[in-house]
């Protein structure tokens, strides 16, 4: 267990280093690349004096490292800056939108697992047969289809034609189904491939052959012997999935009018409100770092065979 403690500490150190790197990149994108943030905040009709005042307020006259340190210290205090257009704190905007995104994330990941795991197990069991080929081709379609096309298709079929679900919006369980399913169908393809190869690895093991030789039926081998071992590595992957989810959230929330941080970013894109875009990027990157960290830390617990490096 001593090895595990050192391993966890090392991972925490790595995660912190990556976070610092991420803030450096968001800082560069926020303050150094845009032509003149002060002018963008002041608006078109501002006088040169106003622009100069804002520049001093933002500390844009300071040298690079001092600006970065100022940015870091405000981040530590939970201050992501102010929106150029809405003139409100980005942190407040993001916090008010976060619950909706977390709800969508829970719904989407449940859908992915409910679709991906059974499909992957079926493909592994029917290896080389029609079901396997069909599932693998469908999972390829899943990774090749843009989320906005799948989202609009589901809206068209289930909301417009059949009228089973509302056309976008937020509030009831019915509102959650289509956006979660859009992400679930595409992410499910990814899980089904992982689940299939994990299951095939396990089915190849000697102990499965032993169980079979002792006369265990196919169903018993799958549920009692194989599934438990095959599913463990997949559980650790849910952490990685958070990153994939965070990339899709802008598109899906804008298609379904889901009031989360993705829609916030989308609205900010339309008005070129860079502080909001960078705030959402930073929050999403935090989710990814934490997700990767959890995947790394959980993996050796669920599967003691993993070597700690």
């Amino acid at each position, binding site marked *: 267990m001593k090895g595990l403690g050192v391993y966890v500490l090392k991972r925490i150190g790595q995660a912190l280093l990556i976070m610092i790197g991420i803030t450096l*990149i968001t800082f560069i994108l926020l303050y150094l*690349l845009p032509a003149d943030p002060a002018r963008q905040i002041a608006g078109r009709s501002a006088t040169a004096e106003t622009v100069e005042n804002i520049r001093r307020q933002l500390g844009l006259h300071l040298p690079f490292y001092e600006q970065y340190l100022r940015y870091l210290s405000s981040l530590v205090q939970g201050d992501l800056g102010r929106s150029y257009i809405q003139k409100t704190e980005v942190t407040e905007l993001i916090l008010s939108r976060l619950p909706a995104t977390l709800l969508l994330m829970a719904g989407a990941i449940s859908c992915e697992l409910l679709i991906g795991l059974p499909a992957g197990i079926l493909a592994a069991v029917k290896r080389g047969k029609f079901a396997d080929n069909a599932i693998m081709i469908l999972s390829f379609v899943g990774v090749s*289809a843009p989320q906005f*096309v799948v989202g609009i298709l589901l809206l068209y079929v289930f909301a417009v034609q059949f009228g089973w679900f509302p056309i976008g919006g937020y509030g009831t369980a019915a509102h959650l189904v289509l956006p979660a399913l859009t992400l679930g169908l595409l992410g499910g393809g990814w899980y089904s491939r992982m689940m299939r190869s994990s299951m095939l690895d396990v089915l190849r093991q000697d102990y499965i052959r032993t169980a079979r030789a002792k006369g265990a039926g196919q169903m018993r081998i799958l549920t009692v012997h194989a599934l438990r071992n095959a599913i463990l590595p997949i559980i650790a992957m849910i952490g990685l999935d958070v*990153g994939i989810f965070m*990339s899709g959230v802008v*598109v899906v929330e804008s298609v379904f009018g889901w009031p989360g941080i993705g829609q916030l970013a989308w609205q900010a894109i*339309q008005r070129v409100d*860079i502080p909001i875009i960078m705030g959402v*990027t930073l929050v999403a990157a935090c989710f990814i770092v934490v997700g990767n960290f959890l995947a790394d830390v959980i993996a050796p617990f669920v599967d003691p065979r993993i070597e700690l490096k």
Partner: protein
Amino acid sequence: MSRNFGKFLKRRIAVTGAVVITVICVAAIGAPFLAPYNPSEQFFDGLTLEGAPLPPNERFWFGTDLLGRDLFSRILYGARTSLIIGIVANGIAVLLGTVLGVTAGYAQGWVGAFIMRFTDLMMAFPALLLAIALAAIFKPSLWIVAMVIAMVNWVQVARVIYGQTLSLAAQDYIEAVRSLGAHWSRILFVHIVPHILPTVLVWATLGIATTVLLEATLSFLGIGVQPPTPSWGNIIFENQSYFTTAPWLVFLPGAAIVLLALSFNLVGDALRDILDPTQKGRTAG
């Protein structure tokens, strides 16, 4: 090589993908001759009396869009946009990823560590959000979109190539060549680089699928290729509010995107199975 080509031909699904890619390439190159109309011409009879777009008919095979333009012609020209971005953006990404991956894997030491830590950092960024931030800062145009996509897509390639270079550099034959007094550039370009070319080819194919999807998504969000230049993504962006009454305006370009990305994924996957010996061992075992 011809043996590998034979193996490829045996995979019917991958061959279908290659045929689809060829057809789309021909459509893109021949768009000026194949398109029945000018893609930006607004037809007076291209809208109903109420001003709604026309569904597919004999005159306009794929119907018309909200401005009364011929959708079939726009989709043909849109294929150009997708392929140009696919080839340019992915070409830059693969080149950058390969150079950085090989450098990190061969030089190792602090150079390698620096490159790989930077790669880890980029991996922690949600690719789409980073692309959105970049596209929002720079004024979007065809070439900016290509650059933005290249900036986020090289990371995967660099990691894969790094791993491969690292394991090649540790092989005994490299040690043998080095002890014979070969110059580092000879070791690198004669003994290492040729072995990673198959992987580069695989990623050059798979990466186009990712690139096509990313371009479509950026254009759908309004920060990719800007109208009037037609792109499959921005056709959907322009017409999405009509999807309940004119679904063809969303689903025909949408089908084109899926078809192109799927074909590149299928061909790339087949190439990986055929060319990558480590993967071959796994499927045979």
